[in-house]
């Protein structure tokens, strides 16, 4: 295997939302890294801070409320958090693209889909290509995502959800980014379309060699598409590792165990995962020590006292005191 080059490295990232009522601790010191041509799955239930993490990478947090309290987002060694606004604009859409959660609302209803794809190309047209060349590229992108290029003069409301998602993907891929962030790219689509869109993304990844962050709550999607996995809970990555570590490894965080136990049967697919009794703590009011403590079957007083022990074995990291005891026993 060739030498892996690190593309993205997130270090101790901490993000809050400061609203009038409360301080929401959405992301609390997460670390992960991603190599070129690799795909990482970010898994966790609703409110875990997945979207917040994605928005932070592109510095698209809501201006008034979202605040990055600390940490680094190193993209090819440069800290994106230090970049100026115009520098950041050159990264967005060109080097890092994002596909948002809901394709139904992600497109501007007043512009033709062709113009919306073209817009990406125009913004980053540093090579000074002619209008014709750009339009040819729009056609190419439509073909790439499997939509007849003749339909580019139509408006978003003339397309189905799955097709809209394809257009959103075309926009994201327009400038051949090195990193594509897909925030629940298939959640809003029905099952058959989900499979098609995933297949499309998989093919594109192979063809273009793009690295991806796939945000999902569906472990099935992770198993199919990812090289690495990070399990998020209450703004922390409680367990991370290769797909092999997570799906076949011996050691697991109690939350991961819960997640796997909660995988629904094929014929009764649930909307959202409810892995374990209880709810995720309110991020405006997080518990002391281990944030999973209140729901954990292995909870002890020690878990409340301080942040849990971090178990590490090669790429596999688990944030839980259970493994500290084991280490002491041996």
């Amino acid at each position, binding site marked *: 295997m060739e030498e892996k080059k690190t593309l993205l490295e997130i270090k101790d990232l901490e993000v809050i939302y400061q609203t009038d009522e409360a301080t929401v601790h959405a992301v609390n010191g997460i670390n992960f890294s991603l190599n070129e041509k690799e795909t990482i799955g970010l898994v966790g239930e609703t409110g875990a801070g997945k979207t917040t993490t994605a928005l932070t990478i*592109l510095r*698209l947090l809501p201006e*008034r409320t979202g605040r990055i309290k600390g940490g680094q987002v190193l993209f090819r060694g440069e800290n994106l958090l230090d970049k100026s606004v115009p520098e950041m*604009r*050159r*990264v*967005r*859409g*060109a080097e890092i*693209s*994002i596909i*948002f959660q*809901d394709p139904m*609302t*992600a*497109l*501007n*209803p*007043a*512009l*033709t889909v062709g113009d*919306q794809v073209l*817009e*990406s190309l125009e*913004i*980053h047209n540093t090579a000074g290509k002619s209008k014709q060349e750009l339009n040819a590229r729009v056609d190419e992108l439509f073909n790439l995502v499997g939509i007849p290029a003749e339909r580019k003069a139509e*408006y978003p*409301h*003339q397309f189905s959800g799955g097709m809209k998602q394809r257009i*959103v993907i075309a*926009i994201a891929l327009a400038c051949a980014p090195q990193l594509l962030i897909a925030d629940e790219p298939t959640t809003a689509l029905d099952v058959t379309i989900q499979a098609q869109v995933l297949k499309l993304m998989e093919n594109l990844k192979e063809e273009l060699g793009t690295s991806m962050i796939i945000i999902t709550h569906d472990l099935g999607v992770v198993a199919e598409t990812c090289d690495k996995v990070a399990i998020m809970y209450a703004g922390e990555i409680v367990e991370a590792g290769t797909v092999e570590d997570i799906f076949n490894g011996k050691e697991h965080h109690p939350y991961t165990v819960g997640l796997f136990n909660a995988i629904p049967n094929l014929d009764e697919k649930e909307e959202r995962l409810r892995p374990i009794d209880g709810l995720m703590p309110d991020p405006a009011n997080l518990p002391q020590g281990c944030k999973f403590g209140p729901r954990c079957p292995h909870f002890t007083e020690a878990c409340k006292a301080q942040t849990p022990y971090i178990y590490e074995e090669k790429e596999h990291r688990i944030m839980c005191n259970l493994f500290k005891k084991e280490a002491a026993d041996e």
Partner: protein
Amino acid sequence: MGKFVLKRLLALIPTILIIVFVVYFILDLTPSSPGQLILGQMATEEAVEAKNIELGYDKPFLVRYVKYIIQLFQGDLGTSWVTGKGVLESVFARFPVTVTLSAGATVLGIVIGVLLGILAAVKQYSIFDAAGTTLAMILASFPAFWIGMMLVILFAQELGWLPSYGTGSIAHYILPWFTTACAFIASQLRMTRTSLLESIRMDYVRTARAKGQKESVVIYRHALRNALMPVVTMAGMNFGTLLGGTVTVETVFTLNGVGTLILTSIRSKDVPVVVGAIVILAICYTLVMLVVDILYGFIDPQVKARYIKN
């Protein structure tokens, strides 16, 4: 599209029936003698009586109403009891003043209101937002005649920059325009602000930012365009309402518009002019709203698609 226009025009018919009925009914509550009005104070009682009978004024209310409606749909609005001129002619003679006043005020309202609204929304919670919102509140809460008088006192009497009455030139219209526009600036500002704030939060605006688009283009190309729908409706409604609602301002600035025509005609009980003028205004209002609806199509492709299908 043609079908859509036709449908809207047909809807005018019941509207006119109701309007005429109401106006006719109210005017009929106080006794009137068209014979006296037409023949003047010097006419003999017999002559007046004979004229009233000729006009069918001895007949019951409903009979007169039906007769008027029949004439109306034949395109005959009747003649003024006071001046003897055709109603259509009298109203159209006054029309340019009212249209100039309404159109100018609408344009001012849109330009100032929308610009301040954009500023308030884009710089939400800033000093611009606070100032804009406060201005809107002040403008909306003072009555037009009061604002008009204050402007007259300041710019006509004290500073002597502008004329305070009449219609001779553009300068004559400046104070009436601003007076009329005040309420619009307020409503347009608020509407633009609310609507834009809403569309700025939409996902597609975030998509545009994620493409690396400049913030100014994001606002103009993505947020504003979608925020404009309610603003256009409101502008159309404002203009339509204005056509019939400039009486106060016309009176304050002694402009001879349709508003003052209706007012003097009510005073002199010149029923055909009152009813005729109101019917014409109702038709104009409908036409303006129709144009607004068609304008929609240019902004919102979904609406355009619907017209074409119909």
